[in-house]
């Protein structure tokens, strides 16, 4: 087959899978709406739209220039004779793209959707108290600086991807479809935002109790899970093809692994909640479902279906207990469970790749400042677990402080948290001037201070 025909075929296949990714955004938005209060439902959906829009524009203006693609211009430090590629130097405003640069165009398309997905994650944590303008500000910082920087290190031929070539540590840090770059970065931003915002009024009382504030629509939440599956299938397949060189023929196995990880994770969460509370919890089960999807993002292209089941089961267990620990012991009020689902699930997926991953197909051979092509290697990579651990350490030791400081400074200039009166009234009426369900009966007790 002629190389131009192959390129067109790969482009078309990738395009198909990339265009499924907005379903993941729709699913997450619905889940965030359903897990919040009814008086903030319209605000949450409006915030989701604004976050996707701001993220896309910020990524277009600055983000892509700093993320770049493998082999593109970049700033490189020389440390002990080894090159440390730390940030791309592409032109701003996506000026690199043309109809001939199909690889870069596909990456830009996938990333512009992915950065919107990452921007949605903190919304679930800041539900019912995070102001709309503050959401837009925080999203702009995420999409223009935090996300592209880490994405360059992993997907743009940066120093994390070069760990294998430079230091013989496995095949460098691998993240096929964004468990680290999208999910964990979003989850850690959610943690930073939650710390800055503080809990909702009435969440923690002086007597040490933390009453549950249940979501208002479990149907939205569970339907969001189904939409998320479609989106994640596209995200995982497109990511594996673009960033790890997976062939289009590998797409069915990636989709199977994605579904199996989500299924095992959701069923584990349902089983644990049934065993502990007498009935399966819909909210935690749906969190388990998405957590399984998140964990699968790192390793879906490198594990067998049986291993995907194990990875999903462990994700479901970790997420269920993490949500409880964050809420009850660490007093982190995260209505959407975003920190546990995306940060804990994402980091587990990255580590699982180091434990279970086998490389049967091509993986990127990142040498020096660029990609010299995809090479076919087989077997388990020695020290791959260490490469993954270094990536996770970078997320916790660099990305979390960076996003925390950035949001802390923004909060000093423009307060993130809505006023007490606004929180009591509900974000819909206070910020948008109209409720999401104007014809529904209002429960007056929701408006009383707790």
């Amino acid at each position, binding site marked *: 087959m002629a190389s131009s025909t192959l390129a067109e075929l790969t482009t078309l296949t990738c395009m198909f899978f990339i265009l499924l990714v907005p379903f993941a955004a729709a699913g997450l938005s619905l889940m965030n709406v359903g897990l919040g209060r009814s008086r903030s439902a319209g605000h949450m959906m409006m915030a989701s739209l604004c976050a996707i829009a701001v993220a896309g524009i910020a990524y277009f203006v600055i983000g892509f220039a700093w993320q770049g693609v493998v082999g593109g211009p970049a700033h490189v430090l020389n440390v*002990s004779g080894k090159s440390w590629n730390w940030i791309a130097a592409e032109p701003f405003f996506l000026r690199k793209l043309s109809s001939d640069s199909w690889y870069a165009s596909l990456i830009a398309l996938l990333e512009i959707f992915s950065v919107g997905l990452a921007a949605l994650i903190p919304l679930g944590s800041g539900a019912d108290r995070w102001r709309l303008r503050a959401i837009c500000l925080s999203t702009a910082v995420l999409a223009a600086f935090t996300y592209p920087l880490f994405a360059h290190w992993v997907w743009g031929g940066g120093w994390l991807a070069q760990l294998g070539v430079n230091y013989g540590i496995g095949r460098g840090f691998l993240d096929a479809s964004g468990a680290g770059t999208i999910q964990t970065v979003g989850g850690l931003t959610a943690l930073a935002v939650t710390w800055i915002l503080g809990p909702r009024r009435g969440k923690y009382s*002086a007597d040490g109790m933390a009453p549950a504030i249940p979501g208002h629509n479990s149907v939205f939440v569970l339907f969001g899970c189904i939409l998320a599956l479609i989106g994640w299938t596209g995200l995982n397949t497109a990511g594996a093809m673009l960033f790890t060189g997976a062939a289009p023929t590998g797409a069915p196995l990636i989709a199977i692994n994605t579904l199996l990880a989500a299924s095992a994770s959701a069923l584990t969460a349902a089983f644990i909640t049934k065993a502990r509370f007498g009935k399966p919890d819909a909210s935690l089960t749906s969190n388990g479902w998405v957590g399984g999807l998140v964990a699968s993002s790192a390793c879906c292209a490198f594990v067998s279906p049986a291993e995907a089941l194990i990875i999903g089961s462990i994700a479901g267990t970790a997420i269920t207990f993490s949500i409880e620990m964050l809420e009850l012991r*660490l*007093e982190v009020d995260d209505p959407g469970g975003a920190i546990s689902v995306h940060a804990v699930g994402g980091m587990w997926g990255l580590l699982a790749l180091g434990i279970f991953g086998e490389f049967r197909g091509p993986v990127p051979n990142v040498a020096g400042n660029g990609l010299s092509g995809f090479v076919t290697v087989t077997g388990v990579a020695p020290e791959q677990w*260490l490469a993954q*651990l270094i990536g996770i350490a970078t997320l916790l*030791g660099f990305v979390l*402080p960076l996003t925390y*400081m950035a949001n802390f400074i923004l909060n000093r200039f423009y307060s993130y948290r809505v006023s007490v009166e606004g929180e009591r009234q509900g974000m819909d009426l206070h910020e948008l001037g109209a409720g999401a369900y104007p014809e529904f009966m209002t429960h007056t007790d929701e408006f009383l201070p707790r």
Partner: protein
Amino acid sequence: MKAMGVLMLPAGWFLVLAAVLLFPSPALRGAFAVVGFGVEALGLGLTFRSHLIPREEKK
């Protein structure tokens, strides 16, 4: 305590980076990196603790 917790996160990360740069031996490199990761975990614990809500502010 909050500042110390947040500062311990990059401190642990620098230890992990130092392990990559300084130790060619896989065993030593792995052990040093795990220690760096441990420092990060301590920093994370400290940061969580510093964000606990004081009793008088709970309402």
